[in-house]
C-alpha cells in the first residue's frame, strides 16, 4: 500500500483545501482500519471454516444431539401409528372371538347333520333289508290274489245268470219280493267283494313294485340324503375358510404385538410415552464404532475444543435415522442413541463427542 496522497494527481496551481485533505486522511484511515480488520476477520473465518470442514471430514466420534418433543411431527406420527396398531389388535381380537363362536356353532351344526345323515342311512338300509325280505313274499301273495280274483270273476259270471233266474222267478211268482231282494242283495255283495278284491290286488301290486324296484319314494329319500351330504360338504368348506381366517387373524395379532414390542424400543416411543425428559443423539454409521453403551460423552466449545464430560451413552437404537450433516448439510444415515446427560443443556449443542475428547483437551 505504498501510495502517495494527491501529489501525483492534483493540479499544482490549485492547492487542495487543508480541510479536504484532513477529511481524506480521516476517511482513508478509517477505511484502512476497517479493511484490515475485515480482511483479517475474513481470513480467520476462512481458516476456521476450512479447519472445521477438515476436522469433521476426518473425525469419527461426533454425534448430533436431537431434541425430540412429544409434539414432534415424527413422534406424533409414530404415536398415531402405534394407536392405530393397538386399535387393529383390539378389532382383530373381537373378530377372533366372533369367529371362534361361529366356528363352534358350525361344528355343532355339522355334528347334527352328520347324525341325521347316519340315521337316514340306517333307515334306508333297514327299509331296503325289510323290502328284500317281504317283497318276494308279497309278490307271491299278489299272484295268489290274482288267481283268486280270476276264480271269483268266473263265479260272478255264474251269479249274473242267477240274477236273471231270480228276476224270472219273481216275475213267475215263484219267489216273493222279499226273497228276491235278499237274493239280489247277496249277489250285489258278491260283486262288491270282487271289486274290493281287485282294488286290493292293484294295491298289492303297487306294494310289490315298491318293495322290489327303486321307486319315486326311494329316490326322494336318496335326494334328501344327497342334499344332506352337500350341506355337510359346504359346511366343511366354510369351516376350513373360517379356521384359516382365524389363524391369519391370530398371526396378524402376533405380528402387531411384535411390531409394538419393537416400536417400544424406538426413541420416539420412549420420548412420547415417558414422563422424564430424554436426550437423544444421532450417530452416523461411520462413527458407530464409538457408540457403545456406557461410553462417555463430551461437549465442546466451538464444537471441537475445551471439552468436558457431560454424560454417557445409555442405549443404542438400531433403527435407521437420516438427517442433514450438522456441518456439511448433506444427508447422512446413521442410528440414534439415548444419552444420560448430567448437563441437559448439552442436548442443545450442535455436536457432542463419544469416547474421548476430539482434540485431547
Amino acid at each position, binding site marked *: 500500500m505504498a*501510495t*502517495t496522497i494527491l501529489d501525483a*494527481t492534483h493540479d499544482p496551481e490549485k492547492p487542495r483545501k487543508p480541510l479536504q485533505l484532513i477529511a481524506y486522511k480521516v476517511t482513508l484511515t478509517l477505511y484502512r482500519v*476497517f479493511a484490515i480488520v*475485515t480482511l483479517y476477520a475474513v481470513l480467520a473465518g476462512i481458516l476456521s471454516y476450512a479447519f472445521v470442514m477438515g476436522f469433521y471430514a476426518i473425525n469419527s466420534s461426533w454425534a448430533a444431539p436431537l431434541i425430540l418433543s412429544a409434539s414432534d411431527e415424527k413422534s406424533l406420527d409414530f404415536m398415531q401409528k402405534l394407536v392405530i396398531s393397538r386399535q387393529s389388535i383390539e378389532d382383530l381380537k373381537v373378530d377372533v372371538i366372533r369367529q371362534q363362536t361361529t366356528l363352534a356353532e358350525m361344528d355343532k351344526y355339522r355334528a347334527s347333520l352328520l347324525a341325521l345323515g347316519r340315521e337316514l342311512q340306517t333307515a334306508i338300509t333297514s327299509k331296503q333289508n325289510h323290502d328284500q325280505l317281504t317283497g318276494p313274499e308279497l309278490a307271491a301273495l299278489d299272484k295268489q290274489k290274482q288267481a283268486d280274483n280270476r276264480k271269483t270273476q268266473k263265479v260272478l259270471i255264474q251269479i249274473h245268470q242267477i240274477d236273471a233266474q231270480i228276476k224270472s222267478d219273481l216275475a213267475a211268482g215263484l219267489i216273493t219280493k222279499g226273497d228276491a231282494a235278499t237274493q239280489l242283495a247277496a249277489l250285489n255283495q258278491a260283486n262288491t267283494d270282487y271289486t274290493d278284491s281287485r282294488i286290493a290286488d292293484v294295491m298289492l301290486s303297487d306294494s310289490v313294485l315298491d318293495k322290489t324296484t327303486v321307486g319315486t319314494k326311494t329316490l326322494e329319500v336318496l335326494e334328501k340324503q344327497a342334499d344332506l351330504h352337500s350341506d355337510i360338504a359346504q359346511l366343511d368348506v366354510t369351516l376350513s375358510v373360517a379356521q384359516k381366517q382365524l389363524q391369519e387373524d391370530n398371526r396378524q395379532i402376533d405380528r402387531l404385538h411384535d411390531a409394538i414390542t419393537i416400536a417400544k424400543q424406538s426413541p420416539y416411543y420412549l420420548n412420547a410415552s415417558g414422563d422424564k425428559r430424554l436426550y437423544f443423539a444421532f450417530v452416523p454409521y461411520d462413527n458407530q464404532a464409538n457408540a457403545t453403551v456406557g461410553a462417555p460423552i463430551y461437549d465442546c466449545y466451538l464444537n471441537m475444543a475445551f471439552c468436558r464430560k457431560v454424560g454417557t451413552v445409555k442405549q443404542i437404537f438400531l433403527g435407521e435415522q437420516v438427517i442433514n450433516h450438522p456441518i*456439511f*448439510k*448433506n444427508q447422512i444415515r446413521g442410528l440414534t442413541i439415548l444419552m444420560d446427560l448430567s448437563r441437559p443443556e448439552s442436548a442443545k449443542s450442535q455436536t457432542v463427542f463419544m469416547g474421548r475428547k476430539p482434540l485431547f483437551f
Partner: protein
Amino acid sequence: MAPILLWLIMFLCLVISVVKYLMGLILRLSFPSIKIRKDYTWQPTVSVLLPCYNEGRTVYNSIESISKCNYPNDRFEVIAQDDCSVDDSHEWMLKAQRDFTNISIRVGRNDFNCGKARTVCNALQGSSAEIIISIDSDCIFHPDAIRELTACFAEPGIGSVGGRVGVSNPNDNVITAIQTIVYYAAFELYKIPENMTRSVCCISGCLFAIRRELLLEIEPTLRARHWFGIPVNQGEDRFLTHQTLMRGYGTYINNDALCWTAVPTKLSVLFNQQLRWRSSILRDLFYTLRSLPTHVFKLHPNTIFTMVLTPLGAVIALLMVITMLSTNPLAWAGPEPLVVYLGIAAAFTWAIKKYSVRETIKHPLAFGAYIAWSLASSLFITPLALLTFDSGDWGTRAKAPEEVPIGHNNP
C-alpha cells in the same frame, strides 16, 4: 425480503450474461452486418503510446512487432514512456529505438512513478496524431492491427476502437487454458451484442484506439482520478471506454485487429491481475450508480445493464457463495457444475480450434478447474477488491521481472 431481492438480482445478472452470450452467438451467425463499416483508404496519423513498467525485454519485442506493421511508416509513430521501471525496461526501449529505425520511436521517462493512466497521459503530451493507440507493453501485435483499428474510425460517431486480444501461451498450464477460453468467449461472444449497439463497455488496454481530441478532452479527468486523494492508476481502459460513451461517442471492438498477450501462468499473478480488474470494475460500478440518471438518459439500455448488473453480479456472487457454503458446503462439489463447465469447455475448445488455430487448447478438460477458480474468485477477489481501493500499483507488474541483459535474444 432481502434474500428474495438477492436472488432476483442474481437471476437477472445470470440472465443478462447468458442472454448476452447467446445473443453474441446468434448475431455472429445471423447478422454479419453488425460489423462496422471500415475504410482502409482513410489513413490518419497515429501515435502508438506504449506505457511501460518493469517489462524488461518484453517491451522490446512489443516495439519490434509494431515496427513490422503494414501501416504506412510515415503515418505513425511509437511513443514509449517508462514509468520509472526498476529493471532495465528503459534500456530495452532505447535499444528498440536504435534497432527499428524504419519507424519513428520516441522514448520518454516519467519523473516519478505515477501509474499507467498518467503514463499514458504523459506520453500523449508528445503526440499530435489524429488517432491515439494505447497498447500494453507485453503484447505482440499483428501487422494489420493499426490498419484495422484506424479503418473503423471511418464510421461517424465512433470514439474508441479496441482490438482482439489473443492468448499466446494457451497450453502452458491449466491456468492459461482457462484464460484462453475466457478471453475467446469474451471477445467472440460476450462483446458482440455490445458491438451491435456500438457501446462496448470495456475496451482492453492491450489495444485501445481513440480519437485524439476525445482523449485530450478526457485526459484531465483521467489524470485527476483519485480515491480520497489516492491516485487511481488501475482500469484506465475501462474508464476511457466509459468516458467515451458518456460523451456520446460509440465504442467498438474490431476482432480483426489482433494482438497477443502472454497470460499469467502462476495463480498468484493471475490473482493480482484479476484483483486489479475487479477493482476497476467495482470503481466503475460505483461511478455508474453515482450518476445513474445521467447514464439512463445517455446510454443504450444494453450498456447500462452491462455496466450495472455485471459488476453487481460479482458482488452478489460473493454473498451467494457464502450463503451456499454455509448452508450446503458440498453443493458445489457435485458433478453438475463440473459437467456444465466441461460441456462449455468442450464447445469453446472446438470453436477455438476451428476459428483461432493459434490458441488451440490441448487439454480442454482443464476447464473443469474453472469451478475452483470461480469459487476463489467470488470468495476472495471481490471482497479484497472492495477493501483495497487505496492500492495504486501496477498490479501484475509491481515486482520487477528477472533481468535479461540487453542484447540477449529470446529463443
